């Protein structure tokens, strides 16, 4: 497959994938509208767009999860029907999902042959797979120990196993859905090197992401989607992040957070030697001490799963910890009690708005009271004061530009950004002394990100303390007044945003000690 020279292939070959006029509707929602795209072989083609722009739907159609209402798919110039993922695999398409589909307690090799075993007995196909795997690893520089158990290897390696799985099934076209979401910057760089190698070997790669930086860094061509339509396809070399952002949102966007220097006051939250043990008995937070002052944003950086979530959950009263917590000088019980925390003036935008921050089946107006449903303004005796609640919701929706501004709509029917606006509106309008924010813009479109960041900064300027946890380094760097990096349940170091960069933070996030960094 590597015989013909690449430039020759690019000139003469038919597009690896060509979609013509793909449309798909879910009920009244037009997820994809008349989408046409040509992906040339041996290139990395980025697809960028806000949440709900239809990227995932389009890829699901390509991978046979959904059937398009209209339109045609051509693979290497030949019209192809893809009724299911089996057909996609035999057409040479491989998919690496955002959430890995690996069996945790199987070895790498077992995971790779899973679903592709031939014959009832495993030993023959295992042996065959082993030789092939070694060859693939050598060819693409993807070294993973075939006998390592999945749960014992890092996230970056697990992702390689997903890529190897696709290659083992003879994939010529690889689709990666938000592949860097769970990686450290260093791991992401390694992934990009692997992708570059794959491209050099003639594979075609479709990279779905919402991160402009990645698009600029690695892709050859980029297509922008907005509201189910393909708004532009441009050569990456001929575009800029600003232009792409504008294409995505449909208006000019401020990519940097505009904020005045912080004027920190007295400490609001003080944490001393906090330890958290999870349900499985694993210590997740290993003695953390920190403080957040009035009028400042403390950002906690770190790769997902290094104890930041647990820290936030203890502070928000969702989980018990051990250690000393003080709020405005007053000692707090470190046990789990969300109501007590709220009474102390702590508001909490949780990491997972769909499972925690909102009840998806509830109307928007029911969600506006969530956590505050015992407050005098929302109750009348043992009953809820539904009318007051609905009026308050309508007002909040107006102030926070929630669309559609319909208090009766169920939370699950809002887009990610608008769901988050409901949560942020609810929490910020409590006028908290301390705001805990976890992943404020995960799955949120760029337009809403800008708005939510503004609100957080405004709250800080009004004198509140803000503790921000985010896996997005960009967000940490642009929003925080002070940055603490967490690794393996400990704080690896504190930096000021003006005096550090992604490389240094990335090293701390990977557990390099202060001295080494």
């Amino acid at each position, binding site marked *: 497959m590597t015989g013909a020279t690449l430039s020759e292939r690019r000139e003469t070959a038919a597009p690896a994938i060509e979609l013509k006029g793909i449309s798909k509707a879910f*009920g*009244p929602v037009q997820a994809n509208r008349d989408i046409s795209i040509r992906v040339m072989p041996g290139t990395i083609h980025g697809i960028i767009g806000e949440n709900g722009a239809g990227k995932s739907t389009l890829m699901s159609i390509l991978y046979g999860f959904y059937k398009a209402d209209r339109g045609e798919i051509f693979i290497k110039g030949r019209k192809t029907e893809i009724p299911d993922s089996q057909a996609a695999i035999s057409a040479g398409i491989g998919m690496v999902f955002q959430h890995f589909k690996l069996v945790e307690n199987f070895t790498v090799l077992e995971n790779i042959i899973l679903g592709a075993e031939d014959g009832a007995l495993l030993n023959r196909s295992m042996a065959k797979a082993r030789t092939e795997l070694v060859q693939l690893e050598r060819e693409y520089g993807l070294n993973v120990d075939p006998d390592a158990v999945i749960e014992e290897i890092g996230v970056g390696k697990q992702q390689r196993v997903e890529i190897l799985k696709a290659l083992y099934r003879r994939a010529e076209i690889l689709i990666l859905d938000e592949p860097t979401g769970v990686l450290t910057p260093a791991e992401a760089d390694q992934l990009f090197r692997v992708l570059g190698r794959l491209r050099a070997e003639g594979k075609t790669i479709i990279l779905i992401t919402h991160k402009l930086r990645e698009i600029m860094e690695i892709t050859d061509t980029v297509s922008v989607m907005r509201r189910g339509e393909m708004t532009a396809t441009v050569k990456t070399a001929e575009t800029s992040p600003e232009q792409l952002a504008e294409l995505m949102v449909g208006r000019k966007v401020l990519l940097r957070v505009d904020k005045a220097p912080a004027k920190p006051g007295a400490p609001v939250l003080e944490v001393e030697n906090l330890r958290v043990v999870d349900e499985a008995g694993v210590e997740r937070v290993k003695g953390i001490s920190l403080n957040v002052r009035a009028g400042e944003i403390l950002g906690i950086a770190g790769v997902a799963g290094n104890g930041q979530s647990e820290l936030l959950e203890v502070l*928000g*009263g*969702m*989980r018990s910890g051990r250690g000393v917590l003080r709020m405005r000088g007053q000692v707090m019980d470190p046990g*789990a*009690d*969300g*109501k*007590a*925390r*709220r009474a102390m003036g702590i508001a*909490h935008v*949780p990491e*997972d708005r769909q*499972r*925690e*921050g*909102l*009840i*998806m*089946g*509830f109307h928007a107006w*029911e969600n506006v*009271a*969530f*956590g505050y*449903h*015992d407050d005098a303004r929302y*109750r009348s005796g*043992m*009953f*809820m004061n*539904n009318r007051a609640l609905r009026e308050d919701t309508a007002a909040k929706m107006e102030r926070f530009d929630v669309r559609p501004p319909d208090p009766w709509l169920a939370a699950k029917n809002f887009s990610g950004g608008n769901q988050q606006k409901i949560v942020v509106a609810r929490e910020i309008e409590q006028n908290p002394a301390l705001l805990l924010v976890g992943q404020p813009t995960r799955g949120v479109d760029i337009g809403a990100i800008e708005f939510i960041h503004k609100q957080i900064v405004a709250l800080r300027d009004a004198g509140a303390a803000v503790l921000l946890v985010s896996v997005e380094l960009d967000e940490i760097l642009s929003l925080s007044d002070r940055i603490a990096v967490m690794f393996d349940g400990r704080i690896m170091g504190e930096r000021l945003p003006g005096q550090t960069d992604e490389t240094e933070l990335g090293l701390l996030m990977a557990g390099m000690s202060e001295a080494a960094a």
Partner: protein
Amino acid sequence: MPKWAEVILVPLISLLLAAILSALVILAIGEDPVAAVKMMVEGALGSTYAWGYTLYYATNFMFTGLAVAVAFHARMFNIGGEGQAMIGGLGVALACLYVPWPHWSLGLLGAILAGGLFGAGWALIPAWLQAKRGSHVVITTIMFNFIAASALNYILVNLLKPKGSQDPASARFPEAVHLPTLHELLAPLGINFSKAAPANVSLLVAVAACVLVWALIWRTRLGYEIRAYGQSEPGARYAGISGVRIILISMVISGALAGCMAINNVMGEAERLVLNATEGAGFIGIAVALMGRSHPFGVFLAAILFGFLYQGGAELALWTKIPREMITVIQALVILFTGALDNMVRAPLERIFLAARRGRG
């Protein structure tokens, strides 16, 4: 899909499918389905006597259906309605036998209290085990049904049975706690309702319970917390809603509702406590709640439907060669189609409505 189709059309089509399949089964055993339907309708709705029985059964099912529905809003699957209703019966019997009530109305209030307390107490143990120990409430409530049956057996035979009686049942309740039947209630209005039918004032209590449960679930803060916990446990933890508290309270309310069924079957109909007084109504309650989508109004309608099936089926068994087991088959089909196979009807309907809308647009 418009709301009316969701609420009315889907269950109606499901019912129709269940009816067609039932008809086929009846045909298969060599009987005439048309005659069978006629007999069922006649037997369950054709006279005030028939209505009296249908509504009597429906009253039972309303209580047990509401019991399952309330727990279900907290995502607790209370299979123990049967046992809770049995123990509730014990409470009602004790209240009726040992308290000298001056008037039936006070006796009814006392019986509601006693039946509710006993049923709630019986549900509290599995609830506590679930909340504190993580023992699954489905398993424990099923086991508690057996414990209730055995305990009641012992109590009736060894403690409550009047001396010299051969019958494992309590003594007859005093005349003062005789509940007015529909015949007695409707007579002043000039309506001549059958004297022999067992439907009684408990029906009104059951309807009131439907309204109260509706208010509880959709209007009170407790109901808000129950629904929130039922839809998302992490969400509840975030909002500071105690899961232990919600499990205990929702199960206690559920048990109390099941226990209150005894005012109908024990106090209103038998007027003494007999063995197996519940006749499986606790289990029918699960189907009723399922079909009623855990909404009190849905439970009300589903309870009447199952009352119809129960009474109509009994008539069928009495007057034709169709065996009594046929009722169970029909009920099972109704449950299957309205509960388990709901999507089979819903999905195509949704597509039809969508296509229709697109055609217009």
